[in-house]
Structure formats: structure tokens, C-alpha cells
């Protein structure tokens, strides 16, 4: 039972819902009573890529790859990975595979785009990172307010490899961004970051599962969210340290600002530790903007709305600054600022 099989078969009973522990805050079965018809092939021209032109591009429109669905990096590479929903009220699924061979370094500029609304879309991406290889994944989700969008990434990391990601999203009617990572230890390093900025009735669910199976693994995770209006943010972070995965260093942080009475954040940070010698910690805070900081800024002459935007931007800025690809970091910074200054 999965979103993918539900879309492929048209059987909505296969959609996950609130009875599934992992999906209890992102109920798709309760929301979608009837399967939307399959998306047609789209003849429409691709919009300009959100991250700008990239040396290589894997694009999917309505789930269909325009030119292949796998990419293998060589040397230092950058690839744009684009999922475009182009038809109103239809459903589609895409599957992609990205491989980074030993010694290669890849930046993936992944985007979820829409040229229509009310769609049901799923994208499954597998990332394979070989020993000594490095991958940075930056994901920008710009879904329609009426869209339902699911992204499921699985990451297979090798010892000595590195995987870093930053998810940036403004949500959708229902949106789930899931990352499952198998961490072999062996000095492999993982960074899993996220930013969600939600307004209106939008929803975003950032779910991650990291399983440490070998000694000497490092995971650093930082997610920050800002919700207003009647929006709802969900963070589920699970880190499992298997028996024998000693000297694992895993840190998880999730911090959210709630800017209105009717907005909501649900968070479930979980550390499951079966090894003895580990350094693991998690921190989780949900609150409002600091009144004292707000007054301080206003006392210096900054009007209230601008002071709120400045402090909110600074709050999520900590995550944005961790993006390593400079052009992507600048773009995300602008994207965030634009959404906070409303």
C-alpha cells in the first residue's frame, strides 16, 4: 500500500491515511474519495527552471520523463531534477534514480512545479552515493494550494560518502516530503535540513527516517518552520541507531514559529538507540516570535511588520545559510524573503 500504487491502480483504498501511524497527520485517504483520472501527456512548454539553467536536466511532466529517468554523475556535476504537474485535477507518478559514483560530487537542484492545480502527484527518487562520493540535494517545492503532492526519497549511502539535503517548501493542500536514509557509518556524513513556510490552509509534512547501521556515522539535522493563518506543519524525524553502530553522532533539531492562533504544528522527533556508545541529541521548540526582540527592533525604529519579517527571516536563515551551493543558497534566500514579507 502506497501513494504510488494507489495512483498506478486508481484504487484510493491504497492511499495511506490517519490510521497509519506514519501518516496520521497527513491523511490522504480521508481527503481523496475518488481517484483523479490519470494525467495526459502534456504538450505544454516547460516553464523556466526555478534554479535557472543547469548543465544537465532530468524533467518529468505529469510523471513522464522528457529525456530519461536516471542520471549518473561524473566528476563535479550539477543536475536539475524537475517534477512538473501540468494538468488540472489529474494524477500521475514519477520515478527517478540518481547515482553518484566513487569520487564524484553532485549537486541536485530539485524542484516541484505546477502549471495547473488540484492534482495528485507522487515522485519517487532513489539516490545512490558510492564510497567517497558526495551529494548535495536542494529541493524547492512550489506546489499549488489545491494540489496534493508526495515526494519519497530513499538514500543509499556508502561508507566515507556524504549526503546533504535542504528541503524548502511552501506546502500544498496536502504535501508530504519523505526521506529515508540508510546510514552505513564508516565516517559517512549526513546533513538533513528543512524549511517550511506555510500560509492559508496549506499543509506540509517533512518526514525523515535515518537508520545508522555501522560504527562512526554522523547525522546532523535541522528543520525550521513558520506557519500562519490556518496552515499546518508536520515534522516527523526518526533516527535509529542499530545495535553495534557505536560512535554514532546524531543531532536533530526542529523549531517552529506559529504566527496565528489557528495555525498548527505537529512534531514527533524520535531517537531509537540500540547501541551503547553514541552521542545523540534532539531539540524541539514550537512558539511565537520573541516579544522582547520585537520590542527591541521597534525601539530602534523598525516598524512592527518589518521587524516581524526581519526576525522571522533570521529564524529560518540559520537553515538557509547551511546550503553549500552558493547560487542555490542565494536563490532560496530570496524565495524565503519573498514569502515572509507579505
Amino acid at each position, binding site marked *: 500500500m502506497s501513494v504510488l500504487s494507489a495512483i498506478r491502480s486508481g484504487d484510493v483504498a491504497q492511499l495511506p491515511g490517519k490510521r497509519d501511524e506514519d501518516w496520521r497527520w497527513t491523511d490522504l485517504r480521508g481527503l481523496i474519495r475518488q481517484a483523479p483520472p490519470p494525467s495526459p501527456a502534456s504538450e505544454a512548454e516547460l516553464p523556466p527552471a526555478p534554479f535557472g539553467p543547469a548543465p544537465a536536466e532530468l524533467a518529468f511532466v505529469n510523471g513522464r520523463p522528457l529525456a530519461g529517468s536516471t542520471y549518473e554523475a561524473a566528476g563535479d556535476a550539477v543536475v536539475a531534477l524537475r517534477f512538473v504537474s501540468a494538468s488540472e485535477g489529474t494524477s500521475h507518478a514519477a520515478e527517478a534514480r540518481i547515482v553518484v559514483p566513487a569520487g564524484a560530487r553532485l549537486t541536485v537542484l530539485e524542484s516541484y512545479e505546477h502549471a495547473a492545480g488540484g492534482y495528485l502527484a507522487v515522485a519517487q527518487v532513489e539516490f545512490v552515493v558510492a564510497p567517497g562520493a558526495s551529494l548535495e540535494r536542494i529541493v524547492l517545492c512550489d506546489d499549488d494550494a489545491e494540489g496534493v503532492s508526495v515526494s519519497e526519497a530513499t538514500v543509499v549511502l556508502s561508507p566515507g560518502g556524504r549526503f546533504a539535503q535542504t528541503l524548502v517548501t511552501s506546502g500544498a493542500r496536502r504535501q508530504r516530503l519523505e526521506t529515508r536514509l540508510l546510514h552505513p557509518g564508516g565516517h559517512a556524513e549526513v546533513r538533513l535540513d528543512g524549511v517550511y513556510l506555510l500560509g492559508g490552509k496549506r499543509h506540509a509534512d517533512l518526514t525523515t527516517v535515518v537508520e545508522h547501521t555501522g560504527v562512526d556515522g554522523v547525522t546532523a539535522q535541522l528543520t525550521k518552520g513558520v506557519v500562519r493563518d490556518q496552515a499546518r506543519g508536520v515534522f516527523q524525524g526518526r533516527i535509529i541507531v542499530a545495535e553495534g553502530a557505536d560512535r554514532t553522532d546524531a543531532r536533530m533539531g526542529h523549531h517552529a514559529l506559529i504566527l496565528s492562533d489557528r495555525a498548527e504544528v505537529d512534531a514527533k522527533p524520535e531517537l531509537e538507540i540500540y547501541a551503547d556508545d553514541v552521542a545523540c541529541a534532539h531539540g524541539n521548540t514550537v512558539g511565537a516570535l*520573541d516579544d522582547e526582540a520585537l520590542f527591541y527592533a521597534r*525601539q*530602534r*525604529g*523598525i516598524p*512592527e511588520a518589518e521587524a516581524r519579517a*526581519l*526576525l522571522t527571516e533570521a529564524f529560518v536563515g540559520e537553515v538557509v545559510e547551511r546550503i553549500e551551493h552558493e547560487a542555490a543558497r542565494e536563490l532560496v534566500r530570496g524565495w524565503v524573503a519573498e514569502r515572509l514579507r507579505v
Partner: protein
Amino acid sequence: MLKVQDLQAAVDGKEILKGLSLEVPAGEVHAVMGPNGAGKSTLSYVLTGRDGYEVTGGSASLDGEDLLALAPDERAARGVFLSFQYPLEIPGVPALTFIRTALNAQRKARGEDEISAPAFLKLAREKSAALKMDFEMLKRGLNVGFSGGEKKRMEILQMAMFSPRFLILDETDSGLDIDALRIVSEGVNALRSPERSMLVITHYQRLLDYITPDRVHVLAGGRIVASGGPELAHELEREGYDRYARAA
């Protein structure tokens, strides 16, 4: 300059200021001294418009304009500056960005043009050098990881950059060692001018050895209960606040 008449204010429904009157003419430095709980910080917050400090009576005006009707940022644009007892740390906002945003907001509110980036940087370099501050610190998050003395210097730097008309220094000496106190005081003294007034709020007389006031007021029980020249501060240092606390 500042005229406060019969000011009454409450916090959480509890009356803290109970008819406070005070006048600070242009060019003068006045000290307000008082025991803990007398209402010193409340006075600074009421004059700057902090939420939760409810004015229940009286008035406060700056050069004839009603201060109490204005938002905190509007008061700042008209030249009211409060140096905080505990300056805030704002991670993610470099000090330079914060100061430039504030300066331009004030200028915009006054109908002036924004300051150009080169002119701003030149001013910031000049003023921070005068306060013996490392310019690199201004590129980091505002006050993040700063010592008490560095935070106070950052307050004085902002004062120097904004060039306000009316300064309120709330317990500026708290947490400062002698060297930091001297640098901070020199920074404040450099701002003394015939067009500018200051209200120095302090518990101890120590700060007033460095920033010599024209007048000293004793605040006790939410009112000014005595006023005098600089010698009054020395008297308080010798004899304590007991006499005034009883009078209040």
C-alpha cells in the same frame, strides 16, 4: 525637551508609576536613581511604548509632541533612544544589517532619503573605531556571543549612528568592568550637546562619576520624591534609599 506630568502606569493591573513628574530641558543630563522596584525600568519602557506597560493617567511629551500616542518605532524616528539594561541577542541578523535597517526606517519615517551603502559603512567604521570595537564583530549576528561590555558598546554605537535627540540609559553600568565603563561613558559623553538630552537611570552612583548629571532625581514608590544637584547622588551612595523608601 522631555516633559512628564503626573504619569501613572500599570503592569499586569498593578500600578507602578503613581504620579511621576519630571522635566529634562534641552542639553541637560538628568539622573534618575532609586531602589529596586521603584519603577525605574517601568519609566523607561513607558516612555518608549513597550506593550504591557499601560498608561493609566498623566502625560509625557517631547518638544510638545505627545509621546504616549505614538508607536515605539514612531518614537524612535522622533529621536527617542533607549539603551537597554540587557541588550537582546538577535541570531541571524548581522549587527550592520540591523543598524542599517533601523537607520533607514527612521529616515524614511522622517521623510528623508535612505543612507547610501558606502556612506553607511564609512559612518559605521568611524563610530565603531571611536568605541574601540572590532569592525568584524559588526558582521556577526547582533550581540550573539558578545560579553556584557561588548553588548553595551553596541548600544552606544547605535546611539552614535542614529544621533537621537533624547537618550534613556537604563542601568547602562550593570555588568561592566572599569575599563568597559570608561569606554562606554566616553561614548555617551561624546554625544552630549546643547540639542540633546539624556535620562540616566541607575541604582548606583558609580556611573555618575563618569557621566556627570546636571540634576539628580530620586524615584521611590512610583514618584519622584526628591531632586537636587550632582551632590544628591553622593548623599544617596552614603546614606542609602531608606529615608526615601519610607517617605514614599
